[in-house]
């Protein structure tokens, strides 16, 4: 469903991705690891279509169509979801209002039946429960005054409702306490299905104990320099990145 070939991309005209290849098939879970600044978030943002992130070479196909040709909202409507590393606050716009607008657009585009407000509220409450957020968070402004961990859980809550085809999770585990990590992992696992692809960006093996990936990739300096099965994550945990990147020790 996701086919990335020799992808080159710049952030504010600075080359960050330098020939990246990655294929994600339906039903697969991929973990992407790699040192700080290697381009993991850049990859996620390029795929989601953020301003200032430009594809300068190669291609990224989602369900056969080139992502470069789609506006960010069209990518979302096509079923691509990004859980942000740093979710931004939108003061005064309630979570519920936000979800309503998002779901109306995405479900509408996908030809799914429209949820009336009662259904929406019921679904949203259930999703909150799944990630252990009190339903009162639905009334609060989007991420407004949320703690770091609450913001991350809020992202997963949205993901559960949006039922994406391809979910990109950028360091959703960082900043979570141990219980929240398990809750979030459970939420993500509940979305695992033969039709859905999941890409997890993470620094820690710990998350992968709960969400067991089919593939693990190491991203360094804008390229995937090593791919393997879930054992690769263990190996990285032990040895760091130095043996792969050629540096003595990664920071």
């Amino acid at each position, binding site marked *: 469903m996701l086919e990335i070939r020799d992808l080159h991309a710049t952030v504010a005209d600075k080359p960050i991705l330098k020939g990246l290849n990655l294929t994600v098939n339906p039903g697969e879970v991929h973990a992407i690891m790699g040192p700080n600044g290697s381009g993991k978030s850049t990859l996620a943002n390029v795929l*989601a*279509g*953020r*301003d*200032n992130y430009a594809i300068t070479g190669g291609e990224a196909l989602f369900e056969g169509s080139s992502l470069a040709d789609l*506006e*960010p*909202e069209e*990518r*979302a*409507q096509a079923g691509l*979801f*990004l859980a*942000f590393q740093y*979710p*931004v*606050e*939108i*003061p*005064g*716009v309630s979570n519920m*209002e*936000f979800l309503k*607008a*998002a779901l109306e*657009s*995405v479900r509408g*585009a996908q030809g799914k039946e429209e949820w009336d407000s009662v259904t929406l509220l019921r679904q949203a409450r259930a999703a909150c429960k799944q990630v252990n957020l009190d339903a009162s968070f639905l009334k609060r*402004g*989007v991420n407004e005054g949320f703690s770091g961990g609450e913001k991350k859980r809020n992202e997963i809550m*949205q993901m559960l409702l*949006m039922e994406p085809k391809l979910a990109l999770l950028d360091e959703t585990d960082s900043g979570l306490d141990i219980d929240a990590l398990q809750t979030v992992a459970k939420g993500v696992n509940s979305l695992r299905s033969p039709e859905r692809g999941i890409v997890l960006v993470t620094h820690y093996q710990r998350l992968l104990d709960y969400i067991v990936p089919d593939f693990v990739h190491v991203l360094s300096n804008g390229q995937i320099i090593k791919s393997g099965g879930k054992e690769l994550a263990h190996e990285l945990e032990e040895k760091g990145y130095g043996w792969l990147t050629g540096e003595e020790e990664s920071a």
Partner: protein
Amino acid sequence: MSQAELDKLIRSNYEAGFTTTVDAETLPPGLSEDVIRFLSAKKGEPEWMLEWRLDSYHKWLEMSSPDWAHLHHPPIDVNEVSFYSKPKSLDDAPKSLDEVDPELLATYEKLGIPLHEQEMLAGVAVDVVFDSTSVFTTFKEKLWEAGVIFCSISEAIQNHPELIKKYMGSVVPKGDNFYAALNSAVFSDGSFVYIPKGVRCPMELSTYFRINEANTGQFERTLIIADEGSYVSYLEGCTAPQRDENQLHAAVVELVALPGAEIKYSTVQNWYPGDENGKGGIYNFVTKRGVAHDNSKISWTQVETGSAITWKYPSVILRGDNSIGEFYSVALTRHMQQADTGTKMIHLGKNTKSTIISKGISAGRSSNTYRGLVRISPRAENARNFTQCDSLLLGDTCGAHTFPYIESKNPSATIEHEATTSKVSDDQMFLCRQRGIDPEKAVSMIVNGFCKEVFKELPMEFAVEAGKLLEVSLEGAVG
């Protein structure tokens, strides 16, 4: 109304044949004593009212238009303004809705104010001002039962002269400022409200103002008196059709909250703002002020998206001890609009309290200025004020300015002031778009969120309307 009845009505009202435009009697442009005498006579006003107008006119002649505001416009020549325009079919005031000129009703329906519907939906009494004459006042009877007087100013001058003599000009004196003096001389019509002692007005009162005739200035005058311990919520909606010329609008609103009373005054204003090149649009110079006596409360809430020029400072004179003044404002400017708006809170009594929340949103090449004054007089012990002014910029060709003036003559006062200027951030836009929300909807959602603290002060239906209005006004505001 059946077609047959409608036909009959048309025939009886328009013997010379029905035309699609309202036939109006409009005075040629210009202002003089004679024009004022004509106006007053046309309305069958008593002598004292004419004297009051003439006195105002003479005061006005001595004055010049204020130049301290952050506004740029060619000098306004009153000799180009017509001071009287009245739809002819209303010469005999209608006794029921069925007698109202269908053209007028159709116009209101276009504006989304179907009177028939409103009558049935109940809950809102509407006093509609079409150019200069009150068309029809619904629910008068129900209000009458509660002892509430809700009528046009013209009627009040005839039927309640004692209240008019006592209160008109008591809050905004005849010679208060250039535009108020002009209004006092030539005011055409407007609404009058009196809530008796201890009465909670049984419904929200509402007036829609509308400028129709080209080149007519509208000078409405509103007076609301809430007697001791009473409560009233008043809604004012304004809208004007699109015209290439600039039209002048200089209104005066006076509120009197007697001891223990509460007045909540809400405005949604979307007069025509002019096009993207600054052609056309309403010049809106308004004086709105309330006097709050002991233990009373006056609350102004305004959502302003229209007018080419807005000059408006709804104010509260906190005369009585423990009185409360509030000002909640959203002002959106786009195209070439200029707004210089804010409030004055004048603390005279002890333990008086005021709150100011102002939200300015600027887009296009517009200029949006907040100008506020908080004055604490020497005898206003323990006065408190909280002011928050937030500006949101859409794009980088617009301007936002904040001029907060604070004059405290009593050391026991507590004054807090917060101000922020922000932009709709790329991160916020990206989050919305990543969730499938298109950019226009995203901007309107973010702007609505920015205004939330003000919108929650509006009555429910008005809040919805205000939200929609912002959405419409923002169309095309994002590049």
